[in-house]
């Protein structure tokens, strides 16, 4: 994704590492004056807000990589990814809010950075802010629309994205449905995939995977971010000074950031986020209205929901969590609601009551079980295989393809490979 992702990791990755390791690294950051001459800004809230912007810059990508990952053509230097990352005041939580690039926006009055022409405030798409006025107008537009004060600006392009993922050793992405996009060359089968930087870029760039278009892409970008956080926090990179230095150098050598973002900020955040994990992060997209708006000469835009969107940004300002507080067991997200699936459970063992126990547990997570478990002798727990199955009895996935363990099995995986 023209991803801001790497910047999040920069923040995370600073954890626990001595000042001597990172001191001086920020001299390699390309600086932008994102907050120049800004007036009438929103009041500061608790926590810290970082505007993460992803562009399609690809200057240092090799011709081989461009061909392999479908990165040919000239960059438009568009901001296809715009996210607000809110770091809570206690540094226990990172809240990521994606802003669709086609969002209807009121661009503040400004002078075009290319033509020098003065513009009055006017409606456009939110990503036009970068094209017309660079980072400064992008920050002003986001602050104007959200009333959230942006503390820092970070910009990542294709090159820095690929490098960052690679230096971290890649990420692991799971998909419960085949993902294909001929524009990016993405071609993922159902299952778990270890991705390098180029492959991850294909994943987060793909828009034509399903009917969800940019909204689906934002969801995949959020999944990727979570995977990257998981990798950064579980791989030991935060505790290994040498590895940390490599990652940080790679990151900071290719991002663009505001003048105020430096080593001390990274250390401050890093120290506070030593205990960070995927569950410390939360992701959402700004709520949208059902109806969009077409602008003459610009095209269709997405309107933010008039009441829900302001509430979301209120929560950011007030440093409140966006995801419901949960003490429940971890819930895995799946493609199909378990409420849509009727299940018949049979006890394949001589253990009394096992069928009823399984039936109860499946029902508890939403499956429409018959409530009348039967008895079928067998050795292992069996069900339709593959990640597309809406539930996984822990540790019991069958090793062989599921064929016909029963007469009543009547669902097929979305791959269509399974047969009853």
């Amino acid at each position, binding site marked *: 994704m023209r991803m801001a992702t790497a910047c999040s990791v920069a923040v995370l990755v600073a954890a626990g590492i001595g000042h001597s390791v990172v001191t001086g690294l920020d001299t390699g950051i390309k600086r932008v004056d994102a907050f120049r001459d800004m007036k009438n800004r929103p009041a500061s809230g608790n926590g810290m807000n970082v505007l993460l912007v992803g562009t399609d810059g690809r200057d240092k990508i090799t011709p081989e990589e461009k061909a392999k990952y479908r990165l040919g053509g000239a960059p438009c230097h568009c901001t296809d990814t715009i996210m607000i990352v809110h770091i809570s005041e206690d540094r226990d939580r990172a809240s990521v809010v994606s802003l669709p690039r086609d969002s209807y926006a009121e661009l503040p009055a400004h002078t075009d950075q290319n033509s020098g022409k003065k513009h009055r405030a006017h409606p456009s798409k939110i990503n036009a802010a970068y094209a017309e006025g660079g980072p400064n107008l992008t920050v002003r537009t986001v602050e104007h629309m959200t009333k959230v004060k942006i503390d820092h600006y970070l910009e990542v392009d294709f090159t820095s994205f690929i490098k960052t993922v690679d230096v971290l050793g890649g990420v692991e992405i799971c998909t419960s449905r085949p993902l294909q996009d001929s524009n990016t060359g993405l071609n993922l089968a159902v299952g778990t995939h270890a991705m390098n930087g180029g492959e991850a870029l294909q994943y987060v760039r793909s828009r034509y995977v399903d009917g969800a278009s940019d909204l689906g892409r934002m969801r995949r970008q959020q999944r990727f971010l979570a995977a990257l956080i998981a990798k950064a926090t579980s791989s030991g990179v935060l505790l290994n000074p040498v590895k940390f230095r490599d990652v940080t150098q790679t990151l900071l050598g290719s991002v663009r950031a505001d003048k105020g973002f430096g080593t001390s900020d990274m250390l401050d955040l890093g120290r506070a986020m030593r205990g960070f994990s995927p569950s410390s992060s939360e992701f959402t997209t700004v709520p949208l209205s059902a109806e969009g708006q077409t602008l003459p000469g610009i095209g269709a835009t997405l309107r933010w929901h008039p009441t829900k969107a302001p509430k979301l940004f209120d929560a950011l300002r007030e440093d409140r969590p966006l995801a419901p507080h949960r003490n429940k067991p971890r819930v895995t997200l799946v493609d199909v609601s378990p409420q849509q699936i009727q299940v018949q459970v049979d006890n394949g063992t001589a253990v009394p009551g096992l069928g009823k126990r399984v039936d109860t547990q499946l029902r508890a997570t939403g499956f429409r079980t018959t409530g009348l478990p039967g008895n079928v002798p067998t050795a292992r727990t069996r069900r339709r295989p593959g990640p597309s199955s809406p539930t996984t009895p822990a540790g019991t996935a069958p090793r062989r393809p599921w064929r016909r363990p*029963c007469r009543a099995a009547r669902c097929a995986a979305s791959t269509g490979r399974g047969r009853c």
Partner: protein
Amino acid sequence: MRSVDGQGAVLKVIAGADFKGVRPVRAEDELEGEFGAVTGDQVVCP
């Protein structure tokens, strides 16, 4: 998962001796909470 013509609508699960438990799931499209936010642990690989 999706239904397939001619195969009915019931998923059969046979509990074996290796059964440990059911991992809770929910559909991704069923937004939870006021803002429909998900936490990172919900979307990374199990």
